[in-house]
């Protein structure tokens, strides 16, 4: 497994949000989705530094949209997951599933990934 394919928790969440949002994935929409779905209010700065890291690992790519008045005449940067990114997400899921298999926490029932 190459180093680039190892994902941190927040990196994985951002990648999953990008996949969920499809063609509408950009900074603010990813932030909104994370707040809505998992109640995680992240600062836009930390989100962009993660996006920057994912781009440098070539796990996502970006396409510049048209400038809009609602954004003060600034363009959106639409995010798209790459093949490498998809591999990283699948690998991460499989690793998590393996590690969760047969595991019980605080005497609870077995947790299946």
């Amino acid at each position: 497994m190459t180093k680039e394919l190892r994902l941190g928790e927040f990196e994985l969440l951002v990648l999953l949000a990008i996949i969920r949002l499809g063609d509408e994935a950009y900074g603010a929409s990813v932030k909104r989705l994370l707040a809505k779905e998992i109640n995680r209010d992240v600062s836009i700065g930390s989100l962009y530094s993660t996006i920057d890291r994912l781009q440098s690992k070539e796990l996502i790519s970006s396409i510049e949209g048209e400038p809009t008045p609602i954004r003060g005449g600034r363009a959106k940067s639409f995010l798209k997951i790459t093949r490498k990114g998809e591999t990283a997400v699948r690998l991460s899921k499989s690793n998590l599933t393996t590690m969760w298999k047969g595991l019980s926490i605080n005497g609870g029932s077995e947790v299946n990934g």
Partner: protein
Amino acid sequence: MEALKSMASQKLKKPSPIQKAQPPVFALRVLELILPREIKDQLIGDLYEEFAEEESSAGAKNASQWFWKQTVKESAYWILRERTSALARTLVSVFYICLLLVILLMSEFVIQIEGEIVILGLILILSLMFLVVSRNKDGLSDLLVFLVHREADMSRSRMLKVSNLLRSIRNTTSVFCSAFIIVLLAAFLNPIFSIWEFPIGQFLTGLSTLTSLHSAAFIAILTLYEEKVQQKLNYRDSAYFEMEAEIV
């Protein structure tokens, strides 16, 4: 047709959410100044969008306060993340200037003792080194590792960082040394400004001479270390190519 025209003009007159209120201009300027160029537009655009949402739900005043809060939060984040080295450099520069001022103020007392000048020359060189090193903290920690344990297993990029750091220290010291030599030559060759006749002039001339000597010695040591780092890098490259050839 007339009805259509009037509808269109009514639509045009209707203000869009962005026309109702704008984010505080000064906060925008702060963000434009601090944010990295690559993400500036996207990030400010996202904040604009959120500002419009905030305005429609909580009103213009609260939205403005929210924007300021975000500006402070984002600025602090990016200053700490991107510009820590610049901050450290500024602090070291301030320290360096203060040190020079103290030297100038104390020169009358120090001029009598040569040993003090030697120490001051060393302080100048060390301050200069810190100025350069504060720009490259990772390089410094790797350089220390290299100095303590020559055989430490370092990646190629880390070795390159050490090599670049050594080179930048050497280059800056060379410039520093050259500047002192020019000052010395100018002082000695110019008959009008015979500065060495005054205590402060004698002090500065002594300090310049010794600092130049320290710098020269320092450059020699740095060159030696640079060569050692380069040798290690070359060795690693040849080992890598041999391994690759074996695989092929």
